[in-house]
């Protein structure tokens, strides 16, 4: 490490690195380990994996490329980065697929051993990119990762396959060196991870060290970079968290703090399956899981559990949400708590199943037969998925209503450093169950399942097994109070209004809307869901440049926060960036009759903050 001072070190505010290679090249692991090193260096950061759609595409093909992007800095980091400073490309396919993401003048660190004729053919390069000028304007660093790894591992007499699988460690070591990251934590990590396989530990750390050393010695790399620790990070213990993982933790928190048993029922679907995977490991928190035969069965099982006094939660993605809608309508009518997580992906139909999108909002709001309002929430960052899951469960059981929680593929798979909350600060749930009759009929105590709480308008939740509260509910219209089947016209009108009013009252739960920037100005950006980072980055940037723009980010979509009308009064223009063809914008226009301007990107990919900046500039300067 003493050598480290030998090369000049340039200080940077922020950097974006993209690790890309074949699915078998271990890029996700490389990225994750680099992330940890960066977190330990106390940078703020955001990451985004980019998996291929195929399970295992044939090696070397463009559609088998797996990538991991990390954006880190000494200042606040909101997104995984717009343009890449350094692309690490383990093969031609990785280079081909990702080159357009690298900023002009950026660096390409390529495994020069992987650019033979066959490799180029597999990637469908008709010419060698190093030779045809297509890489002009980039700084190309060719490193024979494979050869160097083989060399490093010669003493061990390993097979080719094992050695090939280790070359990502070389790349990692070199990158750690380039960005002045300590190597020890990663060595420790490897040692922990493979505690039972000492040889694996040894070969990995050996190659890692070689990569680092190579940086010191090679002529090809002249500069090192340093990104100073961020001073803006709140104090506390941090971990890295993905959105799907956060949802599972949120449910554990409910089971722990909510005094409520939870049943999670789901049918696997990308990108929601990981929630099921995570939750199925939480049995010791009292959470049961059911892998159902389809989405309808999953939501049915969840509702059945809720009827039984155990909070039913189900998770899915867009096509699955469509299938659940009829049953969600039943939960609306029977006024049972239910939480439905929709991890949105590219649509319509099967669409782009591994890509992100925000195009299920209107489905969530309106996609049921009859007047069937539900509460709709949206998480805005991976870590926020934890809080919004908790909130969804709290609202569902307090208001006896289905809640749809929208996240997306970007939140699900993206990660951010997460300040671990103090569990004591989570509001415990009020015990939701009634145990006593609530009505007298002919001088006898009886139970009327549709007598409402005056504050929340929730009906009482009576757990089967409780004597004296036997009652029957169902999907036919209910008589107010007594809850019997009723075809009475006025009762129907009343009940439709009542259910709507109940959902509207959830406004009581919504905190004051935070405004990023001043409460008045030229333009207000209104966002929701996973676009938060990009919007905040753009608005912060432009504010630094003196523009009178502000932003709000909605996590409560139905009902909307009560303070929005007032906030809107402070601005002249409104921009609504969404990863869809304009959905929230419709809801807002309808509700506030103001000229909200949509800004859409429907490419299966998150916004770049620069895109939003561009749009804002267009609007404020025109």
């Amino acid at each position, binding site marked *: 490490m003493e050598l480290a001072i030998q090369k000049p070190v340039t200080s940077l505010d922020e950097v974006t690195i993209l690790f890309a290679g074949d699915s078998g090249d271990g890029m996700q692991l490389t990225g994750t380990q680099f992330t940890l090193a960066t977190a330990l260096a106390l940078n703020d950061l955001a990451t985004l994996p980019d998996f291929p759609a195929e399970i295992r595409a044939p090696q070397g093909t463009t559609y088998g490329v797996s990538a991991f992007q990390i954006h880190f800095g000494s200042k606040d980091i909101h997104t995984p980065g717009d343009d890449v400073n350094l692309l690490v490309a383990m093969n031609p396919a990785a280079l081909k697929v990702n080159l357009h993401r690298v900023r002009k003048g950026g660096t390409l660190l390529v495994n020069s051993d992987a650019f033979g004729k066959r490799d180029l053919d597999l990637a469908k390069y008709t010419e060698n990119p190093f030779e045809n000028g297509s890489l002009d304007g980039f700084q190309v660093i060719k490193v024979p990762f494979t050869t160097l790894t083989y060399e490093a591992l010669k003493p061990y007499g390993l097979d080719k396959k094992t050695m090939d699988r280790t070359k990502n460690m070389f790349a990692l070591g070199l990158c750690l060196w380039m960005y002045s990251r300590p190597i020890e934590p990663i060595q420790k990590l490897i040692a922990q991870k493979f505690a039972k396989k000492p040889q694996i530990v040894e070969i990995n750390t050996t190659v890692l060290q070689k990569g680092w050393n190579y940086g010191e010695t090679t002529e090809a790399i002249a500069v090192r970079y340093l990104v100073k620790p961020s001073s803006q990070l*709140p104090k506390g213990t941090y971990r890295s968290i993905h959105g799907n993982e956060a949802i599972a933790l949120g449910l554990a928190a409910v089971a722990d703090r909510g005094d409520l048993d939870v*049943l999670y029922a789901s049918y696997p679907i990308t990108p929601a399956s990981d929630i099921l995977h995570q939750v199925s490991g939480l049995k010791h928190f009292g959470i049961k899981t059911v892998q159902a*035969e389809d989405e309808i069965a999953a939501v049915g099982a969840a509702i*059945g559990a809720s009827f*039984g006094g155990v909070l039913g939660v189900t998770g899915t993605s867009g096509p699955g949400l469509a299938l659940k809608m009829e049953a969600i309508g039943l939960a609306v009518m029977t006024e049972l708590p239910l939480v439905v997580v929709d991890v949105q992906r590219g649509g319509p139909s099967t669409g782009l199943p591994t890509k992100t999108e925000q195009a299920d909002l209107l489905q969530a709001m309106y996609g049921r037969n009859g007047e069937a309002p539900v509460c709709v929430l949206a998480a805005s960052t991976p870590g926020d998925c934890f809080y919004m899951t908790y909130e969804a469960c709290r609202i569902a059981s307090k208001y006896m209503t289905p809640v749809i929680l929208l996240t997306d593929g970007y939140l699900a798979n993206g990660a951010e450093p997460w300040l671990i909350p103090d569990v004591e600060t989570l509001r415990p749930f009020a015990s939701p169950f009634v145990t006593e009759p609530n009505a007298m009929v002919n001088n006898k105590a009886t139970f009327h399942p549709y007598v409402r709480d005056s504050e929340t308008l929730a009906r009482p939740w009576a757990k089967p097994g409780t004597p*004296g*509260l036997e009652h029957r509910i169902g999907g036919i219209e209910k008589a107010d109070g*007594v809850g019997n089947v009723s075809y009475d016209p*006025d009762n129907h009108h009343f009940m439709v209004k009542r259910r709507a009013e109940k959902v509207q009252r959830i406004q009581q739960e919504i905190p004051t809307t935070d405004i990023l920037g001043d409460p008045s100005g030229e333009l207000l950006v209104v966002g929701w869901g996973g676009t938060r980072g990009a919007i905040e980055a753009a608005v912060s940037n432009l504010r630094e440049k003196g523009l009178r723009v502000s932003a709000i980010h909605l996590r409560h979509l139905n009902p909307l926060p009560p303070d929005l009308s007032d906030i809107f009064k402070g601005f002249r223009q409104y921009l609504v960036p969404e990863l869809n063809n304009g959905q929230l914008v419709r809801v807002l226009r309808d509700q506030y009759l103001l000229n909200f301007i949509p800004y859409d990107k429907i490419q299966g990919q998150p916004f770049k903050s620069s895109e939003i900046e561009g749009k804002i500039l267009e609007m404020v300067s025109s």
Partner: protein
Amino acid sequence: MQENGKMPTLSEKPPVGRIFGGDGENGEAKLTASSFKTDQDIRWCPGCGDYSILAQTQRIMPDLGIPREKTVFLSGIGCSSRFPYYMNTYGFHSIHGRAPAFATGLKTARPELDVWLITGDGDALSIGGNHLIHLLRRNLNIQVLLFNNQIYGLTKGQYSPTSEQGKVTKSTPYGSLDHPFNPSAVALGADGTFVARSLDRDPKHMQAMLKRAHAHAGTSLVEVYQNCNIFNDGAFFEFTESASKPFRSLFVEHGKPLLFENGKKGIRLEGLKPVVVSLEEDGFSVDDCIVYDETSRELATIITRMFDATMPRPFGVFYVENRPTYDQQVAEQMEEVLQKRGKGSLASLLNSGDTWEVQ
């Protein structure tokens, strides 16, 4: 606001000091059939076979010894599925075809509840077919009463997946073309662990079947032939009416030979084929007849396939298999994990994995 302008009357005393949800004085458990009646007017057509099934169910409930509050009746949609409104227990009238899904969630969440699922031939075998077969393979410990009237009653008379081919209905003016399901065969194919059939017009038999179904640990499917006197009147009269019943109905009982026509005829296996033999004319005796073994899936498969006019239609418990129930296994697995890992600590879960401090 209530439709008939009246409030429901209370058929029970307040739940103070009660053991059971009975209607006896001073909280003692004197449940009777009428303890299970509700104040709701029954809205089936006069003469509908559903009345009998309801009556038999209410009749056996007191004998089962389960408190009302621990009993749940759950149904889909159809005439039959209105059943829960008439049972003074917890009840859930859900949506069409999905009752097995709701039941799976309910029973998995609350295995201590006694869950009955009420469904029709359309509800269970048309829209709900998938949930039903998955329920059967998972073997949740619940009772399923399938009211088979071979018609869609509530939607006013279209043919159902159990209707005979060629049936002329509103939707098939030239006769239906779909080959019908044999519900018992479907259940056996789906690895059901308890498969039985009964008749609306044989109260004793139905009561016996309901009790056996309840006694079985696992999903008990009881198909009940139910007359829809409006849209499919008499569909089962050959099996239920005294003039033809002895000739057309075969009551199977474990350990007993398969006899009908008041013992004059029996069923014999020729190779793997069941054949009718006359004990009076063909020179066969009772000893030649199949002695029914309800634990034999092979035999159950053969007997439930007796479905055409040449053979008597079998009734009774066709098959019983002991297999761990899903709900019980879930409970056990939960317990095991709890034993192994200890009650989860939220704080340590949140702090798991790689963490770092910002000071």
